[in-house]
């Protein structure tokens, strides 16, 4: 039972690729072996910066011989058929066996395949593995055409057993296999030959190479924590960094260094990020103060001065890095303390999305929305708007430019430096939350408002430009934004209808877009011949016309018309006019309509004519509304279903609640769904559904047959049976409980009252024939059924419940 050892020795393999590459090598080689009939007992993969190693133990020395019997044509088949069979089996006629079968004499071929020695198979399999290796990124080098992650230098491939060691011969692009490797690049570079895996691992260790990445990582962590502990400190855990560092060294030597006092006042996150990103250092924290005071670096070698030179060098590099960070920090603080105006200005040049304008425009919208949402959340409107205006200012800061992952956090520091209220500062950090399903949701009112406004703006605007997620594609993370908004609303128990919010955000977006369009138009006209006319026209357009939208839409149309007229009088504007007309029709008209419908009713109400016009416009506007806001709402509902399903609330239950009025208030919707879910878990609840469905079916059929709607007028005086009378009483009682409960949005009480109807309804169906011969009695009974369904439907649309 020989063992196999393979080592592919190359120039330094990126740390992040090593582990996966080891596994890929194992899979490619062992799969290839097994396919060729070479089974084995166990296999293991290892990697270092310069080598991928595979050990396979207890494998067959050769693939087993195989015999295959194949049935051919009849012995008396035409010559051609027999020839074909001979070709396909590679045998001659006299090698075929003739056998009597129930179908007559048939020809049989016996195909024997001799086993192949392991070395032959492995040579082929390994060459193929090398040539088809799935590196995430590969390259060629020199004048050759072989591709590897970095230049491949040698291939060690040996089979070993008690009898000795044998090199598996193969050659890939001029690299011939052998039984030698080399140790540490600097500490033991001389090549040496190996006999088997144990010999290999032992000799490597003597040559300052720890083969197993786990062992290196463990050694690094063990040594680091010990070293920190000895100084009363602790290492900040970072598993990703540990794995990466273990992939950068063959012989880890842990060194702990100091951070110069100058830098200790930098925010700990900045120290940590700078040290990790640039230097791959671990942070060492003082558990008493929480401050980062030292660092751990991992060198790749021992030195006669015990790493003193290396550590001094690393400390020096770190100082230069932190000097940069400090420079950014101090510059940023200066801008921050002066009010951050330059940062906000800069955001006017930063495109958020080609169709959605700049970050500054986005911030304007979010700020307006934050102001609108503040009362719902119980935040101060001024504070909410202020927070929204500042929350993304740090995107312009030097620190965030250098370390994008510190966005928000730096905002918090900088806003605090501006002596803003802590709630405003916190919003900068928290408004990005929740980032994932397990990320915490903000709870401070100002943070909640800004986080919600941010997400709603994102959703509405991407909806407006028709960039919705499709299938697995969600490049703008809109599903995450929707889930974030849902969780913020629910976990903060916010009562907030979504539709008006969606609408007003969309409106703001359109308005900002149209301003831009107008400005473009104006600048296109800024040629000298129009210079005289421009100021007045511009003023009319941008101020009188656009700004009066909100107060008096009627006047706006007139103002625009005046503007056009004026421009025509002053010079030849025919081209500009056409553009303006186009603009008016395409860009401004929908805004105008939106605005008109959105403005609150003037004191004294609208005139009849106005009302009529409004209705007319509203009808035109309906399709737009349904296209955007309703579609977005249904997207949010879909995300909500996924979210609630994870919490054990059935799909159909949510549907039954979504079908009710007020379904854009998510808190209300979920409250209803939970109450319904709870009641349906009881026996009464479950049976009530059956009763409801029965009532509903009978009623629907009767209505269809009779062409009459039975909805009103059930009277106890026409009741003939006790069951009927009992149901009347029960409905009266239930109604008396449900109505006030629903007004209080106390769904639990309402549902419980509904569940109490189960017994009287069951008894009614048991003892009463609905289709009584007496027409009056029948109509009364149908009207009674209608009372049941109406009452039930006032709580949720139970028709949508599946069972």
């Amino acid at each position, binding site marked *: 039972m020989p063992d196999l050892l393979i080592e592919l020795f190359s*120039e*330094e393999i*990126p*740390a*992040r690729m090593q582990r996966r590459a080891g596994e890929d090598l194992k899979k490619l080689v062992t799969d290839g072996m097994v396919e060729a009939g070479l089974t084995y007992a166990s296999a293991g993969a290892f990697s270092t*910066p310069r080598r991928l190693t595979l050990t396979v133990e207890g494998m067959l020395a050769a693939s087993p011989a195989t015999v295959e019997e194949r049935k051919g044509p009849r012995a008396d088949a035409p010559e051609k058929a027999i020839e074909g069979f001979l070709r396909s089996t590679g045998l001659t006629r006299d090698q075929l066996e003739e056998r009597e079968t129930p179908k007559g004499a048939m020809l049989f071929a016996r195909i024997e395949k001799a086993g192949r020695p392991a070395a032959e198979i492995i040579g082929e399999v390994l060459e193929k593995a090398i040539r088809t290796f799935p590196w995430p*990124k590969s*390259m*060629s*080098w*020199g*004048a050759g*055409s072989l591709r590897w*992650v*970095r*230049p491949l*230098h040698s291939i060690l491939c040996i089979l070993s057993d008690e009898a000795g060691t044998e090199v598996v011969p193969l050659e890939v692009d001029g690299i011939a296999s052998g039984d030698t490797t080399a140790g540490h690049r*600097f500490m033991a570079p001389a090549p040496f030959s190996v006999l088997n895996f144990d010999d290999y691992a032992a000799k490597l260790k003597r040559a300052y190479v720890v083969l197993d990445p786990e062992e290196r990582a463990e050694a690094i962590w063990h040594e680091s924590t010990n070293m920190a502990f000895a100084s009363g400190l602790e290492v900040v855990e970072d598993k990703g960094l540990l794995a990466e560092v273990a992939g*950068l*060294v063959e012989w880890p030597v842990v060194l702990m260094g100091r951070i110069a006092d100058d830098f200790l006042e930098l925010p700990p996150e900045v120290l940590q990020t700078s040290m990790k990103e640039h*230097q*791959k*250092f671990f942070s060492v924290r003082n558990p008493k103060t929480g401050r980062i005071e030292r660092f751990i*670096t991992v*060198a*790749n*070698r021992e*030195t*006669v*001065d015990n790493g003193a*030179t*290396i*550590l*001094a*060098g*690393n400390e*020096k*590099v*770190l100082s*230069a890095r932190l*000097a*940069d960070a400090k*420079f950014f920090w101090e510059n940023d603080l200066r801008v921050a303390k002066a009010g951050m105006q330059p940062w906000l200005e800069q955001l006017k*040049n*930063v*495109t958020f999305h*080609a169709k959605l304008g700049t970050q500054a425009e986005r911030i304007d919208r979010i700020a307006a929305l934050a102001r609108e949402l503040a009362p719902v959340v119980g935040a101060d409107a001024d504070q909410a708007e202020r927070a929204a205006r500042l929350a993304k200012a740090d995107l312009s800061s030097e620190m965030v430019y250098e370390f994008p992952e510190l966005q928000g956090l730096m905002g918090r520091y900088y806003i605090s430096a501006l002596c803003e209220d802590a709630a405003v500062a916190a919003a900068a950090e928290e408004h990005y939350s929740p980032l994932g399903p397990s990320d915490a949701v903000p709870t401070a009112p100002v943070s909640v408002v800004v986080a919600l406004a941010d997400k709603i703006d994102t959703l509405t605007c991407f909806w407006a430009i028709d960039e919705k997620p499709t299938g697995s594609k969600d490049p703008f993370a809109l599903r995450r934004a929707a889930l974030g908004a849902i969780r913020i609303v629910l976990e903060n128990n916010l009562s907030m209808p979504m539709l008006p919010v969606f609408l007003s955000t969309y409106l703001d977006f359109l308005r900002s877009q149209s301003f831009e369009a107008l400005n473009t138009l104006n600048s296109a006209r800024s040629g000298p011949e129009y210079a005289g006319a421009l100021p007045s026209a511009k003023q009319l357009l941008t101020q009188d016309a656009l700004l009066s939208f909100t107060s008096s839409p009627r006047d706006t149309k007139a103002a625009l018309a005046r503007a056009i007229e004026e421009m025509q009088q002053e010079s030849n504007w025919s081209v500009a006019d056409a553009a303006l007309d186009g603009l008016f029709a395409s860009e401004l008209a929908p805004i105008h309509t939106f605005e008109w419908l959105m403005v609150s009713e003037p004191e004294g109400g609208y005139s009849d004519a106005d009302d009529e016009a409004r209705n007319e416009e509203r009808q035109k506007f309906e399709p737009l509304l349904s296209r955007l806001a309703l579609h977005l709402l249904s997207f949010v509902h879909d995300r909500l279903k996924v979210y609630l399903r994870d919490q054990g609330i059935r799909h159909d239950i949510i549907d039954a609640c979504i079908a009710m009025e007020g379904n854009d208030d998510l808190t209300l919707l979920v409250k209803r769904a939970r109450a319904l879910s709870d009641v349906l878990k009881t026996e009464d609840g479950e049976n009530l559904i059956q009763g409801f469905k029965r009532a509903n079916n009978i009623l629907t059929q009767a209505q269809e047959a009779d062409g009459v709607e039975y909805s009103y007028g059930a009277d106890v005086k026409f009741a003939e049976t006790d069951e009927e009378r009992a149901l009347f009483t029960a409905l009266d009682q239930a109604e008396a409980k449900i109505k006030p409960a629903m007004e209080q949005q106390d769904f639990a009480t309402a549902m419980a009252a509904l569940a109490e109807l189960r017994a009287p309804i069951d008894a009614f169906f048991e003892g009463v024939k609905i289709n009584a011969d007496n027409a009056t009695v029948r109509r009364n009974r149908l009207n009674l059924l209608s009372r049941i369904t109406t009452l039930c439907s006032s709580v949720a649309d139970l028709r949508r419940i599946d069972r």
Partner: protein
Amino acid sequence: MSKMTDAPKSFQEIILRLQAYWAAKGCAILQPYDMEVGAGTFHPATTLRSLGTQVWAAAYVQPSRRPTDGRYGENPNRLQHYYQYQVLIKPSPPDLQELYLGSLEAIGVDMALHDIRFVEDDWESPTLGAWGLGWEVWCDGMEVSQFTYFQQVGGHDCHPVSGELTYGLERLAMYILGVDHVMDMPFNDPQTPIALSYGDVFKQTEEEYARWNFDTADTDVLLRQFEEAETHCREILDAPHEDPKTGKRIVMAHPAYDQCIKASHMFNLLDARGVISVTERQAYIGRVRTLAKLCADAFVQTTAGGWQPDSAA
């Protein structure tokens, strides 16, 4: 830094040693290219010569300009004008890593005391339409060189592949000489009668250029020059391959490439003046890249780029 018997004494000594080392290893020692460039890679001895089938081995110092990095000579590590040492060997020899490490020893890095590491860093130049795989080389945690196997330049696949080494000379020298502020670094031997520091040579110019780069450079002029260089580059390349005067086949890849370099530098200056918005940035870089690709297309049509008369068909 530890005591070393053969430690260099000055910035220039480090440069001279590198020159001697790579000369001994068979490189043609070239002089800096006589135009403003952002990095040693822009030298046609790298950009163009990495293309085509001909062998090549060259090393040179290249003054490099990064207008946005100017700090008026006050930052210990940042300069708007600095030196890169550049080595390009095609095809890349199998012992390039060892050759490189030998060069570190030659300039006084004691391999027994320092921690040298090859850390993944894939190089990409969006302006040149070029990329390669390799590493940043770390010495005790400091990046001292960039080591790249060119895979593509100007949109052309590289075959054979060039190995490129780029040393950031000031940073490397400061480390070897144990200097904390670049302006304090001895430029020549500190024992000579007229000892000059890096600051003596460059403090004045760093100040002047920082002011000019950030605040004074005439953006209209820069913009015009960018456009002119772009137009001219295309005009040069549009000229027929056969020179009407001499009747010879002369593809003017290098003169065109000069215009590409110029456009790139104008873009860097405009960038430092802060007049290029984030969205425009990409567009400008794309325009320079287009020029670089056209120049690369032209170079492979030259004899030096591997063109042969019989391959014309």
